[in-house]
């Protein structure tokens, strides 16, 4: 990555395009994602069109959330492509985090090609109101 940083003009000047994965692996694409924050949790929405539950791997490792999603769709026999825009490459996304959520209570749901991961905030980082006595 350090080699890339010196080669790629935007990165080398400290600007990172928002909303895109830091990690790019050859042969895969980074999906679009969005992170919402509430008082109780962080909500991660990842757009994974054409991905089924069977083709999805979500793992929480030390300091990282990684998603590998395979597109299950195969072109049926006899179909001739006339025009193509949809990529066949699998999705990968790796996000770094600072362990401020409760990894025991993480929930994930895949619906209509959107993966929703709820990461409940750890008690220590929740906003707390302190009564002045």
């Amino acid at each position, binding site marked *: 990555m350090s080699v890339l940083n010196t080669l790629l003009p935007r990165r080398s000047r400290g600007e990172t395009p928002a909303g*895109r994965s830091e990690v790019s692996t050859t042969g895969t694409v980074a999906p679009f994602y969005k992170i919402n924050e*509430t008082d109780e949790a962080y909500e991660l929405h990842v*757009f994974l069109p054409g991905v089924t539950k069977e083709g999805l791997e979500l793992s929480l490792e030390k300091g990282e959330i990684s998603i590998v999603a395979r597109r299950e769709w195969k072109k049926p026999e006899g*179909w001739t492509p*006339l025009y193509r825009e949809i990529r066949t490459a699998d999705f990968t996304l790796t996000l770094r985090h600072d362990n401020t959520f409760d990894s025991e209570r993480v929930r994930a749901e895949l619906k*209509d090609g959107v993966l929703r991961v709820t990461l409940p905030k750890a008690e220590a980082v929740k906003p707390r109101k302190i009564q002045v006595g």
Partner: protein
Amino acid sequence: MHREAAGTRAAPVMQPSRRAELAAPITNTETKTTMTIVRYNYPRTSLTPLVRGASPWSSFERELDRLFTSAVSDFAVFSNAGDLDHFPVDLYEDADNHYVRAELPGVERSEINVEMVEDYLTISGKRVVPGSEGQPAETLEFTRSLAIPEAVQADKVAAVYENGVLTVTLPKREEAKPRKISIEVK
């Protein structure tokens, strides 16, 4: 004889490989007038003043950024949030049908409209992007029309939405289907 010579002289001018000759005077043998073709120089404006503090390379860097961003965006399905109203499509055919596949993750089935008007298939709809706490959900509308290359039976078009991908099946008209006619040889 004289006319023939004039004809052969005019011909090489049309050939790009002989462009070097254009710089030389072309002489019309009949009227003896001479004409020279000179490359046109664009008028030069005054030198663009350099803004103090700005890098003289800034326009070059901007251009590199633009090229880089356009190259990188090919590898991301949606390069940024603003692209959520654009979606990629595929067009396929087999002997009986045309098929259109469109990637529309996270859209309610009731919010997808598929229309067939003449030879154009239009896919439109609304996507609700949930907002953060305290912020309302965003609604993005999208629409796209595709020209279907062959006549289809518009009343028999069917659409299925599964795992965020819309598949539209457009049955070909009978006359558009390839027909196999066996001819008896006597």
